[in-house]
């Protein structure tokens, strides 16, 4: 713990505190005078923001850092794959018959039914999985944040409409709904992340709405309104920064969820289509070859597990670091 923590924060007192960092600081005797315009003081101490605090706490969480490291590693490996992955993932590795070779120095994860290098395919599969995970969650975030914030901020009829629509989405069993959507849209790489993204917004909207509902009650919001701030300004400057933490936690975990869903859909043949390598698709091909070539089952699944686990651990770590209370 650094020494400046004991110092009274001086000018900082005037800035309204979000509920999230309230626990981390000792409040002074006099109440914060929010209406007195703060004179910005030049202090010698580096200011400690909510995110700085969160990062400090996150850094101490070994599991979360392990997850973060693994995700970073996978991103680097995938982005640079073209530079160093020796074998073409789409074609058999040699002209001679190389089908279903056990793992060896040449092929660390073995080869598949038509002699393609499984290691290269797992590496390129990561590209598909991460891209789908991130794109799908981005779509959910765009829709969910827009609807959730309007719903939470304005309430009333709009809120009722958005939340009932969310209820309808929740009434569908998830995988089944995804499959029905893809049956209509047609299975493809693009449609997979669109479908997962569309199915994901209600949760985001709900989490954000309830978060906004509690933040909205704070006095600094009333104060901002009394000072004539516009709705947009109140929303973006005062509510969002304090309401966004649960979304960060939930969004992180959702990427893991989207990766699992993509794998499941591709496994069922409704997702990314061969020959594009995807982990789920590879497992689907492995299904009939469990006895002669168990490595075909082991490695793609292991890749899914470790990647999703990393996002889950990151999410857990962020939840503790940002001190978010979430219902399981």
């Amino acid at each position, binding site marked *: 713990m650094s020494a400046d923590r004991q110092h009274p924060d001086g000018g900082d007192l005037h800035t309204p505190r979000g509920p999230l960092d309230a626990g981390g600081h000792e409040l002074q005797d006099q109440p914060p005078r929010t209406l007195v315009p703060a004179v910005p003081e030049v202090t010698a101490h580096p200011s400690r923001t909510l995110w700085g605090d969160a990062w400090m706490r996150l850094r101490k969480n070994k599991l979360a850092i392990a997850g973060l490291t693994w995700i970073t590693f996978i991103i680097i490996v995938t982005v640079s794959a073209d530079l160093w992955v020796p074998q073409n993932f789409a074609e058999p590795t040699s002209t001679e018959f190389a089908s279903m070779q056990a793992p060896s120095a040449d092929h660390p994860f073995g080869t598949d039914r038509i002699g393609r290098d499984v290691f290269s395919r797992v590496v390129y599969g990561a590209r598909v999985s991460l891209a789908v995970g991130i794109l799908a969650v981005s779509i959910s975030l765009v829709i969910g944040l827009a609807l959730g914030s309007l719903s939470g901020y304005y309430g009333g009829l709009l809120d009722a409409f958005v939340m009932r629509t969310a209820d309808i989405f929740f*009434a*569908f*069993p998830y995988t089944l709904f995804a499959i*029905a959507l893809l049956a209509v*849209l047609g299975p493809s790489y693009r449609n997979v992340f669109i479908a997962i993204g569309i199915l994901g917004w209600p949760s985001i909207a709900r989490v954000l709405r309830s978060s906004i509902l509690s933040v909205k009650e704070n006095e600094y919001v009333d104060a901002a309104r009394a000072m004539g701030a516009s709705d947009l300004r109140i929303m973006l400057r005062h509510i969002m920064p304090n309401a966004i933490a649960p979304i960060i936690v939930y969004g992180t975990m959702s990427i893991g969820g989207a990766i699992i869903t993509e794998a499941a859909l591709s496994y069922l*043949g409704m997702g990314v289509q061969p020959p594009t390598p995807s982990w789920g698709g590879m*497992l689907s091909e492995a299904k009939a070859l469990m006895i002669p070539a*168990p490595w075909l089952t082991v490695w793609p699944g292991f890749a*899914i597990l470790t990647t999703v686990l990393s996002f*889950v651990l990151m999410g857990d770590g962020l939840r503790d670091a940002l001190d978010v209370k979430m219902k399981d």
Partner: protein
Amino acid sequence: MLKYVFRRILQMIPVFLGVTLILFALRIPGLLPGDPVQLIVGERELTPALRAQIEEEHHLNESVPVQYGYYISGILQGDLGRSLQKNRTVTDILLDKFPNTARLAVSAILVEIIIGLLAGIISAVKQYSFWDVVVTLSTSILVSVPVFWLGMLLQMFFGIKIKQWTGGAFSLPMSGMGSPPDLVHLILPSITLASVSTAYVARIMRSQMLEAMGQDYIRTAMAKGLSERVVVFKHALKNALIPVVTFIGIDLGALMGGAILTESVFSWPGVGREIYLAVMQRDWPVVMGGVVVVVLIVMFVNLLVDISYAVLDPRIRYGGTTE
């Protein structure tokens, strides 16, 4: 009580209408790619005469609201249309498969309750012990494992490897229900299906139990000199169980709706696999009808759970309707 049940059923109506509206919208030409007539015709050649006949049969030449009316009244009468592949009604096909799905769902719920509760209680009572770490880590891993991969691994280990090691003396069946259906065939599919939820049950149980153990009445009970066993099981567990029971109830509804992945991996002839096969064969009425039925089953089971809940816990009856 009756009032509560009535209100709860009323709440279901808009959700059900919304669900059917979305499924109906998936069939409107122009909204999404795909010509409904072509979907019905499938591989057959589409002549203008055949098109006219199909449009007539399926009321496709009516206005959209009228079509929706036909659609809803069909559902309410239990008429979900006929399969394009099999010469049977969708209702018949699904009724046939439902008992298998229910069997699998119930045994998965049992696994969840037994293993999930035990793991959660142990890791809460012995917080920070070796077993707590084991439970916490394995629940994180379990929620990250794709169920179909877990199923494949179990098949590989219990179906293939053990058979090789024991020289064929012991192995577990890898697919189907057995004929006549037996319990052995249930083991691997129900473990697979229960995996993720078991992890959640253990996690919720642990956190609820820890919270309950921190309450004043627990300290009082301890101070009175009651044994730890009595305090844990009689006082803490009773209060900690409520959220866990809620979760299990919701999960029961979800599982009753069929488990596409588990059923596909283990070739389990349930509702989920049937719908999935219908998707692959472009047997549109079975897909759409199947989804409607599954949603209805899930809603109905949730209703039953909520009612039994209101019977057990009066606070819910009189409290608000929101979460």
